Protein backbone atom coordinates (compact mmCIF):
# COMPACT_ATOMS: atom_id res chain seq x y z
CA UNK A 1 0.00 0.00 0.00
CA UNK A 2 1.17 3.49 -0.82
CA UNK A 3 2.36 5.69 2.04
CA UNK A 4 0.93 8.70 0.32
CA UNK A 5 -2.00 8.93 -2.03
CA UNK A 6 -2.82 12.27 -3.63
CA UNK A 7 -6.05 12.57 -5.58
CA UNK A 8 -7.39 15.36 -7.73
CA UNK A 9 -5.72 18.25 -5.91
CA UNK A 10 -7.00 21.55 -7.28
CA UNK A 11 -5.82 24.90 -6.03
CA UNK A 12 -6.58 28.37 -7.27
CA UNK A 13 -5.64 31.79 -5.97
CA UNK A 14 -8.64 33.93 -6.84
CA UNK A 15 -9.10 33.42 -10.56
CA UNK A 16 -5.66 31.90 -11.15
CA UNK A 17 -5.84 28.12 -11.38
CA UNK A 18 -2.47 26.89 -10.21
CA UNK A 19 -3.10 23.17 -9.66
CA UNK A 20 -5.66 21.62 -11.98
CA UNK A 21 -6.16 18.14 -10.58
CA UNK A 22 -2.97 16.43 -9.42
CA UNK A 23 -2.91 12.66 -8.81
CA UNK A 24 0.00 10.51 -7.73
CA UNK A 25 1.07 8.00 -5.12
CA UNK A 26 4.32 7.37 -3.27
CA UNK A 27 5.41 4.01 -1.86
CA UNK A 28 7.29 3.57 1.39
CA UNK A 29 10.97 4.32 0.88
CA UNK A 30 10.34 5.76 -2.57
CA UNK A 31 11.98 8.96 -3.75
CA UNK A 32 9.84 11.09 -6.06
CA UNK A 33 11.40 14.06 -7.83
CA UNK A 34 9.27 16.81 -9.25
CA UNK A 35 10.66 18.86 -12.12
CA UNK A 36 9.03 21.51 -14.26
CA UNK A 37 9.42 25.08 -15.40
CA UNK A 38 8.96 28.11 -13.19
CA UNK A 39 5.33 28.75 -12.28
CA UNK A 40 4.16 25.22 -13.04
CA UNK A 41 2.89 24.80 -9.46
CA UNK A 42 5.62 22.69 -7.81
CA UNK A 43 5.95 24.83 -4.68
CA UNK A 44 2.18 25.17 -4.40
CA UNK A 45 1.83 21.38 -4.49
CA UNK A 46 4.35 20.91 -1.66
CA UNK A 47 2.63 23.65 0.33
CA UNK A 48 -0.71 21.85 -0.10
CA UNK A 49 0.85 18.60 1.15
CA UNK A 50 2.13 20.45 4.22
CA UNK A 51 -1.21 22.20 4.75
CA UNK A 52 0.22 25.67 4.29
CA UNK A 53 -2.34 26.07 1.51
CA UNK A 54 -5.83 24.59 1.46
CA UNK A 55 -6.80 23.05 -1.88
CA UNK A 56 -10.31 23.72 -3.17
CA UNK A 57 -10.68 20.12 -4.30
CA UNK A 58 -9.08 16.77 -3.66
CA UNK A 59 -7.94 14.27 -1.11
CA UNK A 60 -4.70 13.46 0.69
CA UNK A 61 -4.33 10.03 2.29
CA UNK A 62 -1.38 8.83 4.36
CA UNK A 63 -1.04 5.17 5.36
CA UNK A 64 -4.70 4.66 4.54
CA UNK A 65 -5.87 7.52 6.74
CA UNK A 66 -7.60 10.39 4.95
CA UNK A 67 -5.91 13.52 6.28
CA UNK A 68 -7.54 15.96 3.96
CA UNK A 69 -10.73 15.83 2.01
CA UNK A 70 -12.04 19.07 0.56
CA UNK A 71 -15.55 17.65 0.84
CA UNK A 72 -15.22 16.77 4.55
CA UNK A 73 -15.12 19.82 6.82
CA UNK A 74 -13.86 17.73 9.78
CA UNK A 75 -10.48 17.53 8.10
CA UNK A 76 -10.29 21.31 7.81
CA UNK A 77 -10.25 22.34 11.48
CA UNK A 78 -7.13 24.01 12.88
CA UNK A 79 -6.56 21.17 15.33
CA UNK A 80 -6.86 18.50 12.64
CA UNK A 81 -4.52 20.37 10.32
CA UNK A 82 -1.94 20.74 13.04
CA UNK A 83 -1.91 16.98 13.69
CA UNK A 84 -1.87 16.22 9.97
CA UNK A 85 1.24 18.30 9.50
CA UNK A 86 3.20 15.86 11.64
CA UNK A 87 2.95 13.29 8.82
CA UNK A 88 4.93 15.58 6.54
CA UNK A 89 8.19 17.45 6.80
CA UNK A 90 9.22 20.37 4.64
CA UNK A 91 12.69 21.66 3.89
CA UNK A 92 12.51 25.19 2.51
CA UNK A 93 14.63 26.74 -0.20
CA UNK A 94 15.60 29.53 2.25
CA UNK A 95 16.23 27.14 5.21
CA UNK A 96 14.10 29.28 7.59
CA UNK A 97 16.07 28.28 10.69
CA UNK A 98 15.14 30.10 13.90
CA UNK A 99 17.98 32.64 14.26
CA UNK A 100 17.68 33.16 18.01
CA UNK A 101 18.27 29.50 18.88
CA UNK A 102 21.31 27.28 18.72
CA UNK A 103 21.48 24.54 16.11
CA UNK A 104 20.44 21.95 18.67
CA UNK A 105 17.54 24.02 20.02
CA UNK A 106 16.31 24.53 16.45
CA UNK A 107 15.98 20.76 16.24
CA UNK A 108 14.50 20.11 19.71
CA UNK A 109 12.15 23.10 20.00
CA UNK A 110 9.04 21.74 18.28
CA UNK A 111 9.21 18.24 19.73
CA UNK A 112 9.92 19.63 23.20
CA UNK A 113 6.79 21.75 23.01
CA UNK A 114 4.76 18.78 21.79
CA UNK A 115 6.07 16.57 24.59
CA UNK A 116 5.21 19.18 27.21
CA UNK A 117 1.70 19.52 25.85
CA UNK A 118 1.07 15.76 25.60
CA UNK A 119 2.38 15.05 29.08
CA UNK A 120 0.14 17.75 30.49
CA UNK A 121 -2.95 16.63 28.58
CA UNK A 122 -2.55 12.87 28.24
CA UNK A 123 -0.04 12.07 30.96
CA UNK A 124 2.67 10.73 28.70
CA UNK A 125 4.68 11.27 25.52
CA UNK A 126 6.46 8.39 23.76
CA UNK A 127 6.25 6.44 27.00
CA UNK A 128 7.72 9.22 29.13
CA UNK A 129 5.60 10.59 31.94
CA UNK A 130 8.29 12.99 33.15
CA UNK A 131 8.89 16.04 30.98
CA UNK A 132 12.58 16.21 31.83
CA UNK A 133 13.16 12.60 30.83
CA UNK A 134 11.30 13.20 27.59
CA UNK A 135 13.51 16.23 26.93
CA UNK A 136 16.65 14.21 27.55
CA UNK A 137 15.53 11.68 24.96
CA UNK A 138 14.68 14.46 22.51
CA UNK A 139 18.13 15.93 23.09
CA UNK A 140 19.79 12.61 22.35
CA UNK A 141 17.77 12.24 19.19
CA UNK A 142 18.88 15.71 18.07
CA UNK A 143 22.51 14.69 18.56
CA UNK A 144 21.93 11.56 16.50
CA UNK A 145 20.31 13.57 13.72
CA UNK A 146 23.15 16.09 13.75
CA UNK A 147 25.61 13.23 13.38
CA UNK A 148 23.55 11.96 10.46
CA UNK A 149 23.92 15.28 8.62
CA UNK A 150 27.58 15.57 9.64
CA UNK A 151 27.29 18.56 11.98
CA UNK A 152 27.92 17.15 15.44
CA UNK A 153 30.51 19.82 16.15
CA UNK A 154 28.05 22.66 15.41
CA UNK A 155 25.31 21.88 17.91
CA UNK A 156 25.96 25.01 19.98
CA UNK A 157 26.46 27.39 17.05
CA UNK A 158 23.85 29.89 15.96
CA UNK A 159 22.48 29.72 12.41
CA UNK A 160 24.18 32.99 11.40
CA UNK A 161 27.55 31.38 12.13
CA UNK A 162 26.99 28.61 9.57
CA UNK A 163 27.42 28.43 5.81
CA UNK A 164 24.34 28.03 3.64
CA UNK A 165 25.06 24.36 3.10
CA UNK A 166 25.42 23.77 6.82
CA UNK A 167 22.21 25.69 7.53
CA UNK A 168 20.32 23.56 5.05
CA UNK A 169 21.66 20.38 6.65
CA UNK A 170 20.44 21.65 10.04
CA UNK A 171 17.06 22.36 8.43
CA UNK A 172 16.96 18.75 7.20
CA UNK A 173 17.76 17.46 10.69
CA UNK A 174 15.06 19.72 12.11
CA UNK A 175 12.47 18.39 9.65
CA UNK A 176 13.46 14.81 10.57
CA UNK A 177 13.02 15.54 14.29
CA UNK A 178 9.26 15.19 14.02
CA UNK A 179 9.66 11.80 12.29
CA UNK A 180 7.53 12.59 9.26
CA UNK A 181 6.21 9.81 7.01
CA UNK A 182 7.08 11.87 3.96
CA UNK A 183 9.87 14.43 3.82
CA UNK A 184 9.44 17.16 1.20
CA UNK A 185 12.18 19.38 -0.20
CA UNK A 186 11.51 22.57 -2.15
CA UNK A 187 14.60 23.27 -4.26
CA UNK A 188 16.90 22.56 -1.32
CA UNK A 189 20.04 23.73 -3.14
CA UNK A 190 18.72 26.70 -5.13
CA UNK A 191 19.79 29.28 -2.54
CA UNK A 192 23.29 27.82 -2.24
CA UNK A 193 26.57 28.67 -3.91
CA UNK A 194 27.41 25.93 -6.43
CA UNK A 195 30.30 24.58 -4.34
CA UNK A 196 27.92 24.00 -1.40
CA UNK A 197 25.21 22.04 -3.21
CA UNK A 198 27.24 18.82 -3.04
CA UNK A 199 27.14 18.46 0.73
CA UNK A 200 23.35 18.85 0.81
CA UNK A 201 22.77 16.44 -2.07
CA UNK A 202 25.04 13.92 -0.34
CA UNK A 203 22.87 14.08 2.79
CA UNK A 204 19.74 13.51 0.70
CA UNK A 205 21.38 10.48 -0.92
CA UNK A 206 22.18 9.08 2.50
CA UNK A 207 18.57 9.59 3.57
CA UNK A 208 17.47 7.57 0.57
CA UNK A 209 19.88 4.81 1.51
CA UNK A 210 18.35 4.86 4.99
CA UNK A 211 14.95 4.21 3.43
CA UNK A 212 13.28 7.60 3.94
CA UNK A 213 10.27 8.43 1.79
CA UNK A 214 10.91 11.73 0.05
CA UNK A 215 9.43 14.18 -2.45
CA UNK A 216 12.04 16.49 -3.94
CA UNK A 217 11.31 19.52 -6.08
CA UNK A 218 14.55 20.28 -7.86
CA UNK A 219 16.22 21.90 -10.83
CA UNK A 220 19.22 19.56 -10.49
CA UNK A 221 18.24 17.23 -13.33
CA UNK A 222 21.28 14.97 -13.05
CA UNK A 223 20.68 14.59 -9.31
CA UNK A 224 17.00 13.80 -9.93
CA UNK A 225 17.91 11.15 -12.50
CA UNK A 226 20.35 9.62 -10.10
CA UNK A 227 18.50 9.63 -6.76
CA UNK A 228 14.85 9.17 -7.79
CA UNK A 229 12.74 6.09 -8.16
CA UNK A 230 10.11 8.18 -9.92
CA UNK A 231 10.29 11.51 -11.74
CA UNK A 232 7.23 13.69 -12.23
CA UNK A 233 7.21 16.50 -14.78
CA UNK A 234 4.70 19.25 -14.03
CA UNK A 235 3.49 21.71 -16.59
CA UNK A 236 0.82 24.39 -16.15
CA UNK A 237 -0.63 22.83 -13.01
CA UNK A 238 -0.98 19.27 -14.30
CA UNK A 239 1.20 16.17 -14.19
CA UNK A 240 2.41 16.07 -17.77
CA UNK A 241 4.53 12.96 -17.40
CA UNK A 242 5.43 10.58 -14.60
CA UNK A 243 7.59 7.47 -14.59
CA UNK A 244 11.06 6.11 -13.98
CA UNK A 245 13.99 8.54 -14.42
CA UNK A 246 15.16 6.55 -17.45
CA UNK A 247 11.81 7.13 -19.06
CA UNK A 248 10.97 10.74 -18.08
CA UNK A 249 14.48 12.21 -18.27
CA UNK A 250 16.16 9.68 -20.58
CA UNK A 251 13.38 9.15 -23.07
CA UNK A 252 10.55 11.66 -22.57
CA UNK A 253 7.33 11.06 -24.48
CA UNK A 254 5.63 14.38 -23.80
CA UNK A 255 6.68 17.23 -26.10
CA UNK A 256 6.66 19.75 -23.20
CA UNK A 257 9.02 17.52 -21.19
CA UNK A 258 11.34 17.35 -24.19
CA UNK A 259 11.33 21.14 -24.62
CA UNK A 260 11.99 21.64 -20.92
CA UNK A 261 14.91 19.21 -20.87
CA UNK A 262 16.33 20.62 -24.09
CA UNK A 263 16.37 24.09 -22.56
CA UNK A 264 18.13 22.59 -19.59
CA UNK A 265 20.81 20.90 -21.65
CA UNK A 266 21.62 24.15 -23.46
CA UNK A 267 22.87 25.72 -20.24
Amino acid sequence: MAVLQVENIQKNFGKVEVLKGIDFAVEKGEVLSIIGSSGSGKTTLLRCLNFLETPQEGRITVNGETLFDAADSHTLSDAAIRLNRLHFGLVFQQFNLFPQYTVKRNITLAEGLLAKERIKKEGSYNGYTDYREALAAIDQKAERLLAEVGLSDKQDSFPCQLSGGQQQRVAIARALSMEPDVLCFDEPTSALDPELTGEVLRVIRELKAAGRTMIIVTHEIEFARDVSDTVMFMDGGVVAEIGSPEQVIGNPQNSRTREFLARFNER
Partner: protein
Amino acid sequence: MFITVIQALSEGFLETLKLFAVTLVGALPLGLVISFGSMSRFTPLRWLSRFVVWVFRGTPLMLQLIIIFYVPGFVLPQNPWAISGGRFWAAAVAFIINYACYFSEIYRGGIEGVPKGQQEAGQVLGMTKSQIFFKVTLLQMIKRIVPPMSNEIITLVKDTSIARIISLQELIYAGYAFLKGSHGYSGLIWPLFFTGVYYLAFTGLLTLLFARIEKKMRYFGG
Protein backbone atom coordinates in the same frame (compact mmCIF):
# COMPACT_ATOMS: atom_id res chain seq x y z
CA MET B 1 20.27 80.99 45.49
CA PHE B 2 21.73 77.83 43.91
CA ILE B 3 19.94 75.57 46.37
CA THR B 4 16.61 77.28 45.70
CA VAL B 5 17.03 76.88 41.95
CA ILE B 6 18.06 73.24 42.17
CA GLN B 7 15.11 72.50 44.42
CA ALA B 8 12.65 74.15 42.04
CA LEU B 9 14.19 72.51 38.97
CA SER B 10 14.17 69.09 40.64
CA GLU B 11 10.50 69.47 41.41
CA GLY B 12 9.90 70.30 37.76
CA PHE B 13 12.02 67.35 36.71
CA LEU B 14 9.95 65.05 38.90
CA GLU B 15 6.84 66.21 37.05
CA THR B 16 8.65 65.58 33.75
CA LEU B 17 9.59 62.06 34.88
CA LYS B 18 6.03 61.39 36.00
CA LEU B 19 4.62 62.37 32.62
CA PHE B 20 7.32 60.32 30.88
CA ALA B 21 6.60 57.20 32.93
CA VAL B 22 2.81 57.44 32.70
CA THR B 23 3.04 57.96 28.94
CA LEU B 24 5.19 54.86 28.51
CA VAL B 25 2.98 52.71 30.72
CA GLY B 26 -0.08 53.76 28.74
CA ALA B 27 1.31 54.05 25.22
CA LEU B 28 3.37 50.83 25.03
CA PRO B 29 0.32 48.51 25.36
CA LEU B 30 -2.12 50.87 23.62
CA GLY B 31 0.27 51.06 20.66
CA LEU B 32 0.22 47.27 20.38
CA VAL B 33 -3.58 47.29 20.32
CA ILE B 34 -3.60 49.96 17.60
CA SER B 35 -1.00 48.05 15.57
CA PHE B 36 -3.18 44.92 15.68
CA GLY B 37 -6.08 47.11 14.56
CA SER B 38 -4.12 48.51 11.64
CA MET B 39 -3.15 44.97 10.56
CA SER B 40 -6.64 43.54 11.08
CA ARG B 41 -8.31 41.58 8.32
CA PHE B 42 -11.57 43.32 9.29
CA THR B 43 -11.49 46.30 6.92
CA PRO B 44 -13.51 48.90 8.92
CA LEU B 45 -11.29 48.34 11.98
CA ARG B 46 -8.15 48.60 9.85
CA TRP B 47 -9.36 51.86 8.33
CA LEU B 48 -10.37 53.30 11.68
CA SER B 49 -6.99 52.47 13.23
CA ARG B 50 -5.10 53.95 10.31
CA PHE B 51 -7.30 57.06 10.40
CA VAL B 52 -6.58 57.61 14.09
CA VAL B 53 -2.86 57.15 13.49
CA TRP B 54 -2.99 59.62 10.60
CA VAL B 55 -4.77 62.27 12.71
CA PHE B 56 -2.46 62.01 15.71
CA ARG B 57 0.74 61.81 13.73
CA GLY B 58 -0.42 64.44 11.27
CA THR B 59 -1.11 67.25 13.76
CA PRO B 60 1.19 68.92 16.30
CA LEU B 61 1.20 67.41 19.76
CA MET B 62 0.88 70.96 21.10
CA LEU B 63 -2.44 71.39 19.32
CA GLN B 64 -3.66 68.01 20.63
CA LEU B 65 -2.77 69.09 24.16
CA ILE B 66 -4.70 72.32 23.84
CA ILE B 67 -7.76 70.61 22.39
CA ILE B 68 -7.78 67.79 24.92
CA PHE B 69 -7.34 70.21 27.81
CA TYR B 70 -9.78 72.97 26.81
CA VAL B 71 -12.49 71.43 24.62
CA PRO B 72 -14.12 69.11 27.24
CA GLY B 73 -14.82 72.19 29.42
CA PHE B 74 -16.88 73.68 26.59
CA VAL B 75 -18.81 70.67 25.38
CA LEU B 76 -19.30 68.49 28.48
CA PRO B 77 -21.66 69.41 31.30
CA GLN B 78 -18.77 68.98 33.72
CA ASN B 79 -15.10 69.59 32.94
CA PRO B 80 -13.33 66.27 33.59
CA TRP B 81 -10.03 68.09 34.19
CA ALA B 82 -11.47 70.22 37.02
CA ILE B 83 -9.96 67.89 39.59
CA SER B 84 -6.69 68.11 41.47
CA GLY B 85 -3.93 67.10 39.05
CA GLY B 86 -6.36 67.58 36.15
CA ARG B 87 -3.70 69.33 34.09
CA PHE B 88 -1.39 66.39 34.48
CA TRP B 89 -4.02 63.86 33.43
CA ALA B 90 -5.04 65.93 30.43
CA ALA B 91 -1.40 66.02 29.36
CA ALA B 92 -1.05 62.29 30.03
CA VAL B 93 -4.06 61.46 27.85
CA ALA B 94 -2.71 63.54 24.96
CA PHE B 95 0.79 62.08 25.26
CA ILE B 96 -0.44 58.51 25.59
CA ILE B 97 -2.63 58.66 22.49
CA ASN B 98 -0.01 60.53 20.46
CA TYR B 99 2.83 58.19 21.39
CA ALA B 100 0.68 55.08 21.04
CA CYS B 101 0.16 56.06 17.40
CA TYR B 102 3.91 56.34 16.80
CA PHE B 103 4.59 53.10 18.69
CA SER B 104 1.88 51.27 16.74
CA GLU B 105 3.71 51.93 13.49
CA ILE B 106 6.97 50.69 15.00
CA TYR B 107 5.28 47.51 16.22
CA ARG B 108 3.70 47.00 12.82
CA GLY B 109 7.06 47.34 11.13
CA GLY B 110 8.53 44.87 13.63
CA ILE B 111 5.81 42.28 13.18
CA GLU B 112 5.68 42.55 9.41
CA GLY B 113 9.47 42.57 9.25
CA VAL B 114 9.81 39.02 10.58
CA PRO B 115 9.95 36.85 7.44
CA LYS B 116 6.83 34.78 6.70
CA GLY B 117 9.07 31.73 6.44
CA GLN B 118 9.68 31.81 10.19
CA GLN B 119 6.00 31.30 10.90
CA GLU B 120 5.71 28.65 8.20
CA ALA B 121 8.71 26.76 9.56
CA GLY B 122 6.94 26.62 12.92
CA GLN B 123 3.68 25.54 11.29
CA VAL B 124 5.16 22.61 9.38
CA LEU B 125 6.78 21.42 12.62
CA GLY B 126 3.29 21.19 14.13
CA MET B 127 3.57 24.19 16.44
CA THR B 128 0.42 26.06 17.46
CA LYS B 129 -0.18 29.71 16.63
CA SER B 130 0.60 30.86 20.14
CA GLN B 131 3.72 28.69 20.37
CA ILE B 132 4.91 30.25 17.13
CA PHE B 133 4.22 33.77 18.39
CA PHE B 134 5.92 33.35 21.76
CA LYS B 135 8.75 30.98 20.84
CA VAL B 136 9.60 32.07 17.31
CA THR B 137 8.34 35.50 16.30
CA LEU B 138 8.34 37.58 19.49
CA LEU B 139 12.07 37.85 20.15
CA GLN B 140 12.83 38.57 16.49
CA MET B 141 10.20 41.28 16.58
CA ILE B 142 11.64 42.83 19.75
CA LYS B 143 15.09 42.84 18.21
CA ARG B 144 13.72 44.75 15.25
CA ILE B 145 11.85 47.36 17.26
CA VAL B 146 14.47 48.23 19.88
CA PRO B 147 16.42 50.78 17.77
CA PRO B 148 13.38 52.76 16.53
CA MET B 149 11.74 52.50 19.95
CA SER B 150 14.78 53.92 21.73
CA ASN B 151 14.71 56.85 19.32
CA GLU B 152 11.06 57.52 20.02
CA ILE B 153 11.45 57.15 23.78
CA ILE B 154 14.33 59.63 23.87
CA THR B 155 12.21 62.04 21.85
CA LEU B 156 9.47 61.60 24.46
CA VAL B 157 11.80 62.76 27.24
CA LYS B 158 12.19 66.09 25.48
CA ASP B 159 8.62 66.31 24.21
CA THR B 160 7.30 66.37 27.77
CA SER B 161 8.29 70.07 27.78
CA ILE B 162 5.45 70.73 25.32
CA ALA B 163 3.03 70.22 28.24
CA ARG B 164 4.10 73.68 29.38
CA ILE B 165 1.51 75.01 26.91
CA ILE B 166 -1.25 73.96 29.33
CA SER B 167 0.82 75.22 32.29
CA LEU B 168 1.98 71.83 33.50
CA GLN B 169 4.82 72.68 35.86
CA GLU B 170 7.48 70.49 34.33
CA LEU B 171 11.18 71.13 34.04
CA ILE B 172 11.25 73.89 31.42
CA TYR B 173 8.34 75.62 33.16
CA ALA B 174 10.33 75.56 36.39
CA GLY B 175 13.42 76.99 34.72
CA TYR B 176 11.52 79.68 32.89
CA ALA B 177 9.86 80.80 36.11
CA PHE B 178 13.16 82.28 37.28
CA LEU B 179 13.29 84.45 34.19
CA LYS B 180 9.70 85.62 34.52
CA GLY B 181 9.93 86.06 38.25
CA SER B 182 9.32 83.66 41.11
CA HIS B 183 10.85 82.51 44.39
CA GLY B 184 11.86 86.15 44.84
CA TYR B 185 14.07 86.15 41.73
CA SER B 186 13.44 87.49 38.26
CA GLY B 187 15.51 87.95 35.13
CA LEU B 188 17.61 84.89 35.97
CA ILE B 189 18.41 83.08 32.71
CA TRP B 190 20.86 80.40 33.81
CA PRO B 191 18.29 78.15 35.52
CA LEU B 192 16.58 77.75 32.17
CA PHE B 193 19.87 76.81 30.53
CA PHE B 194 20.66 74.51 33.41
CA THR B 195 17.59 72.36 32.68
CA GLY B 196 19.63 70.98 29.76
CA VAL B 197 21.84 69.17 32.27
CA TYR B 198 18.84 67.26 33.58
CA TYR B 199 17.71 66.27 30.09
CA LEU B 200 21.21 65.22 29.07
CA ALA B 201 21.73 63.14 32.19
CA PHE B 202 18.42 61.32 31.75
CA THR B 203 18.70 60.71 28.01
CA GLY B 204 22.31 59.60 28.55
CA LEU B 205 21.09 56.99 31.01
CA LEU B 206 18.44 55.79 28.57
CA THR B 207 20.98 55.62 25.74
CA LEU B 208 23.20 53.35 27.83
CA LEU B 209 20.24 51.16 28.72
CA PHE B 210 19.15 50.71 25.11
CA ALA B 211 22.69 50.03 23.97
CA ARG B 212 22.82 47.21 26.50
CA ILE B 213 19.57 45.71 25.31
CA GLU B 214 20.73 45.87 21.70
CA LYS B 215 24.01 44.24 22.59
CA LYS B 216 22.21 41.43 24.40
CA MET B 217 20.38 40.54 21.20
CA ARG B 218 23.31 40.90 18.84
CA TYR B 219 24.18 37.21 19.14
CA PHE B 220 21.64 36.27 16.51
CA GLY B 221 21.76 37.76 13.06
CA GLY B 222 18.10 37.61 11.89
